[in-house]
């Protein structure tokens, strides 16, 4: 029984260890554009280094832009930092810039922009799936809402995070009674709050690719447990779901932290923003759990006798999605990593 829990956990650890220990690889790239005039910009480009090698990625500006003079470069521990002045014929605001080579590099780029005639900074996350972004205009950057937007961001992140929701669904499905449910949900909440916080303030960094793989694996794992539960079998997880919830909560907390990267944390009100983001996440989670429970209850009240194959659908969905993501993320881990 213990083996059944240990094996996947060991696999996760095995996947993570080399990456955590070796280099702090696969940090996101960082591109900052500060307008110094209507169409001139101070550019800062942090190119992440992978075991001393430069990643083959570079920002591509529109054709009417040119660097003024040679860029100044400086080597840091994990990145090469370039500084340069950029001059364009037309203002960049409202136009697209892309990151060459990002699709195959397996990392992301944080883009921070301060448009002309505003003090507001706007942060965007450029991902490999769509390696380009539209430069926000001054009015868009000014609209950047205050600290409350982090609450919304948290809710949004969980509502759109199908992977997180599937894990929660699995946890709810394998829990037998209310007390156990409370313990499980609380454990999950506390655990993900911890890792979310430490990850968001930068105490612990988790590289993206292995994290995704581990999250995918956790979903696959919970899928198999749901199947086991439905067959009437038992396991360590089924007897102590809160322990597993705690472990996976730690893992998914890192995932939540990446949702924060979209906005970046403000330097002032850092703790408040973090708290609100976390509260947003918890609101989303609790709404989802309540909804699942209410649905279960409603189906009971309507005395619906689902056919066997329908009852298997949730478990199969979780399992199949978990398996698919595991394969997908592992492939990209191998391709993009070492």
């Amino acid at each position, binding site marked *: 029984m213990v083996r059944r829990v240990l094996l996947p956990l060991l696999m996760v650890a095995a996947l993570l260890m080399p990456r955590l220990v070796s280099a702090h690889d696969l940090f996101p790239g960082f591109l900052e554009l500060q307008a110094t005039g209507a169409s001139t910009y101070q550019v800062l480009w942090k190119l992440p280094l992978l075991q001393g090698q430069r990643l083959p990625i570079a920002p591509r500006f529109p054709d009417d832009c040119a660097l003024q003079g040679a860029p100044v470069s400086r080597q840091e521990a994990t990145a090469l930092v370039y500084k340069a002045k950029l001059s364009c014929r037309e203002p960049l605001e409202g136009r697209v810039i892309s990151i060459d080579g990002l699709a195959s590099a397996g990392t992301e780029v944080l883009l921070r922009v301060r448009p002309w005639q505003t003090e507001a900074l706007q942060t965007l996350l450029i991902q490999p799936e769509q390696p380009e972004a539209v430069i926000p205009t001054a009015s868009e950057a000014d609209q950047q809402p205050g600290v409350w937007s982090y609450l919304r961001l948290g809710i949004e992140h969980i509502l759109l995070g199908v992977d997180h929701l599937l894990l929660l669904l699995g946890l709810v499905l394998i829990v037998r009674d209310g007390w156990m449910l409370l313990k499980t949900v609380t454990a999950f909440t506390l655990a993900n709050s911890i890792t979310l916080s430490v990850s968001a303030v930068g105490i612990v960094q988790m590289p993206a690719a292995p994290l995704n793989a581990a999250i995918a694996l956790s979903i696959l794992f919970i899928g198999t447990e749901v199947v086991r539960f439905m067959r009437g079998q038992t396991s360590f997880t089924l007897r102590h779901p809160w322990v597993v919830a705690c472990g996976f909560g730690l893992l998914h907390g890192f995932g939540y932290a990446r949702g924060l990267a979209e906005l970046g944390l403000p330097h002032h009100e850092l703790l408040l923003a973090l708290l609100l983001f976390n509260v947003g996440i918890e609101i989303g989670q609790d709404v989802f759990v309540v909804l699942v429970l*209410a649905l279960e209850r409603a189906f009971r*009240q*309507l005395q619906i006798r689902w056919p066997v194959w329908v009852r298997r659908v949730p478990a199969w969905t979780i399992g199949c999605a978990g398996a698919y993501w595991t394969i997908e993320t592992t492939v990209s881990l191998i391709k993009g990593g070492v």
Partner: protein
Amino acid sequence: MPLLFAHLMQTGFGGFYDGIAHLFLTPSDLLLVLGLALLAGQQGPQGGRLLLTLLPLSWWIGLAVGQRWGLDLTLALLSTVLFTSVGVLVALSLRLSVQVLAFTVAGSGLLFGLINGFTMPSASSGLPLDVLGVVSAVALLSVLISAQVAATRSTSFCIAVRVAGSWIAAAGLMSLGLLLKA
């Protein structure tokens, strides 16, 4: 309804949630689903099961057809008459035969889906997430409410359900008058 709510709401959470919001922010649609759920619940668990099967399905079919036709119609009179009648049925707490209930549910689902479809642009590519959102919200609301009504037998709750039906009917009746006057 004027075209006030015709556009799809932008929640900023993507198409699926826009679809859900669309149902909750379109009073006539919301009232119809509430009314039907109360009505089906009054018929007991069987009614709830019927509603859960038929309403989302017919709504979806109506939506698909409506998106294809894309007419600039809201059919306000017809839809108001429909949900008003549903409200009256709830207030009267009538026992309906399965056929009548099925006909009412399927018919109103098709009509309201159709109207939704007229005003919702069809997705250019990928999954029609907004359609999925609307249909999920319809299914969710109808199953939750009808189950609760079906399972509760206390007199005061039954009266409260009938009061809700009466409010739906009264609001529908008055807006019918306003529509006729306009």
